[in-house]
């Protein structure tokens, strides 16, 4: 049964998906009464994937401006979004990623109305003032600069920029520096007026609530917002197959080298995604994983991170490792390649596969410990596939057999689809010696 304003679309594993008839807003509900707490989130199907040269980083900059003001929630009136949420003790934020932007707040469940009022207000009524963009641009530029301080972030951004030449996964979500600095407020508004509509969004409510009352409140807050006057533009740019190994080197001052190997793979919805996830766990999940054993236990790397990226369009399977000082990055690369070759040559054992499946399934169960964790996982799932994909994920993982793991290694982890990136400290400065420069006596309070 659905209230009159809604149509019940699907239900499974405790999730119930509705469509707000007035404007096409999808509403996903999951009761989880672990505590008197709920998470409300709105996922917009717009991310850096929807940007192009000149306005890279716009989705993210826009996300920042969404905290600056609407007629109802405005700093100038002392009702800034963040201040209102802070005052009810909400744990809140917004994040932007390749395929989506999400806004979320975890709240005491008796404060749901506040969350709904804020999210409905900024869905179509953000003020997007130039006077807000100017200081916020420098805030975002500092966020970019913080990222540039991190060798790992530099390596992964360059990896995507190298592996993707045509598809917009080429550029990072934070954007290129000159685009962050140069994009005009009008361009951001155009972006907002193209993508921020109820029919391009999914609202989710997870936790402690009563369904009928919650849907009535959602309808009251969102029902009057019109659907987009034009269809939401599709991204049609596709990355052609890679026809040979690509390599890059970044040299900067630093202490520790990094090595990254990334292979072109598939989109999240692809049937091979579960096997790639299991492979990721076998290679990098915990102390017993193959690459931890081959790299960290052999004192070649300080740690190892394996990421089977799950995105809306075909993505990557990545291995990143900071190299232990004194070891050559090339040695770490060679060991990673050997381990991949070993997986191609002989099947993993059933016990190894079972451990990986158990760990991935357990993650989904641990998610249910807290409403914001479910919301976070669900946001990603909705952005790259849909909620049913999330609901079915444990079962899909359960079906992965050792032969599937070997098959995906052979299908995707070959040299023609590989991008190898190395971050090399430019010199080995004696930077651990002292402070560089000490200016004693200068007054702090001057």
């Amino acid at each position, binding site marked *: 049964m659905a209230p009159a304003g809604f149509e019940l679309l699907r239900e499974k594993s405790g999730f119930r998906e509705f469509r707000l008839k007035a404007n096409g807003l999808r509403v996903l509900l999951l009761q989880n009464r672990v505590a008197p707490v709920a998470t409300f989130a709105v996922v917009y199907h717009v991310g850096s994937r929807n940007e192009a040269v000149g306005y890279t980083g716009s989705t993210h900059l826009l996300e920042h401006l969404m905290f600056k003001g609407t007629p109802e929630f405005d*700093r100038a009136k002392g009702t800034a979004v*963040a201040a209102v949420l802070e005052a009810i003790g909400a744990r809140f934020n917004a994040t932007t990623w390749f395929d989506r932007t999400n806004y979320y707040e975890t709240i005491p469940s008796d404060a749901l109305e506040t969350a709904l009022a804020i999210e409905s207000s900024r869905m179509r009524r953000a003020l997007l003032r130039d006077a807000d963009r100017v200081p916020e641009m420098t805030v975002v530029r500092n966020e970019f600069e913080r990222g540039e301080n991190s060798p790992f972030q530099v390596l992964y951004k360059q990896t995507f920029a190298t592996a993707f030449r045509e598809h917009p996964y080429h550029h990072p979500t934070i954007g290129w520096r000159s685009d962050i600095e140069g994009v005009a407020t009008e361009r951001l508004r155009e972006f907002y007026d193209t993508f921020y509509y109820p029919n391009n969004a999914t609202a989710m409510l997870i936790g402690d609530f009563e369904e009928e009352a919650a849907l009535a409140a959602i309808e009251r807050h969102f029902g009057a917002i019109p659907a987009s006057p034009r269809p939401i533009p599709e991204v049609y740019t596709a990355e052609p197959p890679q026809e040979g190994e690509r390599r890059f080197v970044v040299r900067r001052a630093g202490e520790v080298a990094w090595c990254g190997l990334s292979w072109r793979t598939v989109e999240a919805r692809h049937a091979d995604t579960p096997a790639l996830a299991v492979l990721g766990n076998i290679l990098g999940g915990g102390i017993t994983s193959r690459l931890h054993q081959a790299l960290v236990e052999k004192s070649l790397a300080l740690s190892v991170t394996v990421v089977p990226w799950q995105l809306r369009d075909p993505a990557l399977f990545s291995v990143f490792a900071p190299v232990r000082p004194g070891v050559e990055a090339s040695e770490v690369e060679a060991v990673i390649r050997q381990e991949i070759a070993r997986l191609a040559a002989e099947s993993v054992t059933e016990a190894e596969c079972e451990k990986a499946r158990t760990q991935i399934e357990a993650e989904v169960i641990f998610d249910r410990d807290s409403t914001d964790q479910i919301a976070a996982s669900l946001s990603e799932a909705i952005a790259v596939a849909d909620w049913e994909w999330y609901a079915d994920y444990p079962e899909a993982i359960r079906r992965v057999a050792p032969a599937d793991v070997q098959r995906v290694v052979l299908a995707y982890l070959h040299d023609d689809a590989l991008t190898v990136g190395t971050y090399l400290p430019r010199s080995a400065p004696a930077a651990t010696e002292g*402070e560089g420069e000490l200016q004693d006596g200068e007054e702090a309070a001057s």
Partner: protein
Amino acid sequence: MTTGAAAPPKRLPFAEAVRQRTLANGARLFVLENRFNPTLALSGSLQAGRLYAPADRRLVASLAAGELMKGTARRTKLQLAEDLERRAASLAFSSDASDPVGVDVSGAALSRDTDLLLDALVEVLRSPAFPADELDKEKKRLVGSIRQQQEQTSIRAFEAAMRRIYPRAHPLHRLTGAERIERVEAMDRAALEAFYTQRYGAASLSLVVVGDVDAERVLDRLEAGFGSWKAGPAPAIPVPGVPAASPGADLVRMPEKANADVVLAMPSTLTRTDPDFLPCSLANSALGQSSLTSRLGVRVRDTEGLTYGIHSSFSATHLAGPFAVTLTVKPEMADAAQASTLDEIRKYVSGGMTAKELAEEKSSRIGRFKVDLGSNAGIAQALDAAIYYGFGLSYLDEFPGKVAAVTKEQADAAFSSRVRPDAFTVVRAGTFS
């Protein structure tokens, strides 16, 4: 408003719902059944942090905690990891300079693996092997990871500030990276074992388990495991003196960093158990807890656009740590950001908070408290902290009332007596011409 929410399930007060047992050797065990999800969370502590290590060898405390999982009398590191990982269970021990007193215990498992987790906990705490080959590997890894940390502007700035504020013998003093590397390289298995033998025991151990478990069974199993463990040293915290402030400025020059970090810090006298803690903490929240809504955030980030992140905090544990403000900046904007930050702090210390700010911070703190109790791990950590600081279980039930009772006069007086804008050590780390 009430429209969207059903009446939340009535909870028993924590003081009634938590089952507890104190063993003859002093170990204190607490279990809360929470059957909404088939998982359990473990949180606990014992007094074996760097405070108890020799002043020239503080590192032995964090290393001993970290090496606990590297093998026991019965299982190698790999066997232990295999047994836990194949069931998706996790167990970890850590101790770092942010809390010089405690070793943190944390763990999680699906509830079907409760015994597996509890048995591993007992085995690891009671019979660690500290294998020499594992220590050698860890030393190599640590040297690399210290060098990796030394690349970070935030860490370099903060450590330089701690080095300037706290004298060498103080547990909050931070050595330089090079000094730490020397200490790591000099560490041996005998030192770890000696520290373990001397400091680890049941007398200061407390453990909290929250989740889909049978409380009596968990208590029985933990008692069976820890009942015969030696008591070890009785809980005691030899509190080091708080040094006088050492105002001044340092600069850590690092090449090719797009972002710089600025730290303003002073030694504070505030501990977590000080009656002024809650008033100070609420006052601090209004000044600088959030980059978005606090006075510092609104001025330096939101209005002036000089930083992505700015925070102020008291580092208050059983010991009084620093009061510190940290911010990230484009190097060219450091002067302006620092000036605005100091200006706001001065105004705040002299003028105090507004009644509206206090009301908002109170409702925020009470709401956040509820939100943080929204998971097994969140409840376990909150209970663990209440026990660790000697507040007792009823603290969680009484906390909202304690927050509500704080007055503006208390908050202003407490904050202005603990924070002196002319006492800051200011350190910048980054690329400055």
